[in-house]
């Protein structure tokens, strides 16, 4: 679908707010001031004050000299932010995706919304008339891109609705500042005589980048639609949510179970319709004493099986404190992943490692014992034994490299190599005997050495020379010598046991 964006600009956002709160201010010029480096500087001026030549950035004393009847009010910095957010939330009645454009604008993604008002013009008029009835001065523009709408809204003269694909024509006659550039770039353009976008838009891209930096190209691309711009909505849509209000407050575990089952049925049937499975699930419950509490579960793979999810949630039921009773349950799935019906069927029948039964078992274990206890390892391309395996992040991770079986590696590896005392002929023979935990082992057979260097790009220290040895009882060990003989007495360690 064609994206359409609406950008709203509030040229007098802060003063409008004061005028709405205190209607007597509408008939007098007033400004908002805040201290900057010890001087009171104007942060916002009302339209009446601006007409008399008082602008933002002036010192309050100068402004008073220009306009003696000026009213001066104090400005609080966080007010503007809060106000914009509130306005963005208000705009959700027009589109679900509304975001704040600091410091004085809003960006709405209105793709597919305008037909409900009978076209873009009617939509825009409705929105703006409501805002101006509320007392706000606004300018707004609709375009295919945020950049073009922003430019037209602040610097455009004529139509506020740019037809699809006509961003270029609109931009040509606008000043460079319409591209949301930084002050130094704008000054440089001004010096060079580039007063309109048309004077440089045809220049080669490499020249523009060299003179004005990457940001200019990004902004141009964003305005023309060659580059996607991402906005962060004030109210992220939570598509999978299920609510269950209760007639009577629920206090018993049995009641909570019934509520959970109802919620899960609803949620899972919706997930099924949209071929999705949830990875995490939050249950919020509203108690009648006004407290809102929540608990969550996670699954190791996407699931929409109500029985399985119920089993996981059931483990958490003892943690719920109903106190005087629960009046509302809300179950939401913040993380969902695509899960097609065929995939699900495949897991249920096959005995492949991607088995849904195993995933459900792991979920159960994770709920009871914590997620950190479950480990699976993948091969890593390192010779250093401790680094030759790496933990897998999920059940579906596949090894990117093969497991090696050509080098002797012990089936038991000590977490920390343990020091041993050895009798060893030099220069690099295996030990004749060694003492480990007070027992003397006489070495009968040995293989090695296998020198393993610490990878210098990871850490720098002594290398290890590994020997596989077998003692007179047929017990097999993995020993190593740390470093060379010529750097003093090298230390010997035991690092593992062979099968």
């Amino acid at each position, binding site marked *: 679908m064609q994206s359409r964006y609406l950008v709203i600009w509030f040229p007098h956002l802060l003063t409008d707010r004061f005028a709405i709160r205190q209607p007597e201010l509408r008939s007098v010029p007033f400004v908002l001031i805040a201290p900057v480096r010890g001087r009171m500087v104007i942060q916002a001026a009302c339209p009446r004050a601006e007409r008399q030549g008082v602008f933002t950035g002036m010192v309050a004393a100068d402004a008073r000299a220009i306009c003696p009847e000026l009213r001066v009010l104090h400005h609080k910095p966080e007010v503007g932010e809060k106000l914009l957010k509130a306005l963005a939330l208000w705009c959700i009645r027009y589109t679900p995706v509304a975001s704040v454009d600091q410091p004085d604008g809003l960006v709405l993604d209105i793709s597919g919304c305008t037909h409900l008002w009978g076209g873009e013009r009617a939509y825009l008029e409705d929105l703006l008339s409501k805002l101006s009835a509320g007392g706000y001065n606004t300018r707004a523009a609709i375009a295919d891109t945020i950049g073009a709408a922003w430019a037209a809204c602040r610097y455009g003269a004529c139509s506020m609705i740019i037809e699809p694909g006509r961003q270029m024509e609109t931009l040509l006659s606008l000043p460079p500042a319409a591209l949301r550039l930084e002050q130094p770039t704008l000054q440089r353009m001004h010096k060079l005589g580039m007063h309109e976008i048309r004077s440089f838009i045809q220049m080669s891209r490499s020249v523009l980048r060299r003179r004005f930096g990457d940001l200019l190209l990004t902004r141009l691309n964003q305005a023309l639609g060659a580059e996607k711009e991402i906005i962060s909505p004030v109210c992220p849509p939570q598509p999978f949510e299920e609510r269950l209000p209760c007639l009577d407050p629920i206090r018993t575990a049995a009641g909570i179970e019934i509520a959970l089952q109802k919620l899960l049925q609803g949620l899972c049937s919706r997930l099924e319709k949209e071929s999705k499975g949830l990875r995490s699930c939050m249950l919020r419950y509203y108690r009648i004493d006004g407290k809102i509490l929540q608990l969550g579960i996670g699954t190791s793979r996407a699931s929409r099986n109500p029985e399985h999810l119920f089993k996981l949630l059931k483990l958490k039921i003892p943690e719920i404190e109903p106190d005087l009773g629960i009046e509302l349950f809300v179950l939401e799935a913040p993380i969902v992943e695509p899960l097609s019906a065929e995939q699900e069927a495949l897991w249920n029948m096959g005995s492949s490692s991607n088995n849904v*039964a195993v995933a459900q078992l792991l979920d159960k274990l994770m709920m009871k014992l914590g997620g950190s206890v479950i480990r699976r390892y993948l*091969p890593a391309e390192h010779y250093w034994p401790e680094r030759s*395996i790496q933990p897998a992040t999920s059940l579906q991770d596949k090894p990117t490299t093969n497991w090696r079986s050509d080098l002797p590696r012990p089936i038991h590896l000590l*977490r920390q190599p343990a020091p041993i005392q050895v009798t060893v002929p030099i220069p690099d023979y295996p030990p004749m005997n060694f003492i480990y935990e007070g027992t003397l082992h006489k070495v009968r057979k040995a293989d090695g050495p296998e020198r393993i260097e610490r990878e210098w790009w990871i850490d720098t220290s002594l290398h290890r020379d590994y020997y596989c040895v077998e003692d007179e009882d047929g017990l097999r060990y993995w020993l190593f010598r740390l470093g060379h003989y010529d750097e003093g007495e090298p230390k010997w360690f035991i690092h593992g046991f062979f*099968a």
Partner: protein
Amino acid sequence: MEQIATKTEIFNQLQQEILRLQGLSKPTTGSAIRTGLGPVEAACPGGVFPMAAVHEFLSYQKEHAAATNGFISGILGRLMLSGGSCLWIGNKRTIFPAAMKIFGLEPDRIIFLDLEREKDVLWATEEALKCEGLAAVVSELSELSFTESRRLQLAVEQSHVTGFIHRYYPRKENTVACVSRWRILPLASEMDSNLPGIGFPRWNVELRKIKNGRPGTWQFEWSDTGFRHLSTAIPVAISQKVSQTG
């Protein structure tokens, strides 16, 4: 003559009946997996390695524990040939996954569960043995009471998962409801034609108990192709630490 034949028939039938009551149903011919442990399999009931059962392994020394885990890995490799994953549950894990490849296993198909308390290990083992999707479950437990082992056995009778309980240094070799009790000791390896160096791992496999089978002792080598039975007996070094403190 005819009478004797019918008697043997009745006797065999009754034996099958008992096996069924004990939860050891005879595997259908298609599902039997060859572990390569020829003479050991012959000593087991029905001539196949008991699947859908819990096996108990004992070890008293670190080196013996390594040998036991090597032997279990060798069997696991065969069990997991047809797919499926394995859960390895323990509280002081020493297994080095990279070395398991040598025993014909894909180490990335093994899920390790490192728990702190022995009680959790037991709970997780029981839950895992109930899960039909797994090929096998290995659990490193040291204490296991008869009641607990009975619960594990009941779980596998439902799910047909093979369980291995590796008991390292148990306080007492108490009676358990497992189908078998094994003791694996390492043997001195040998290279072909007296070359220096260490050869393939060799073990003394002692099958101390087996339900409806014949216990015995065999010696095996883990070669490139799998288990290889050694026909000439090698003397086993008597371990100093085989203690029974009760």
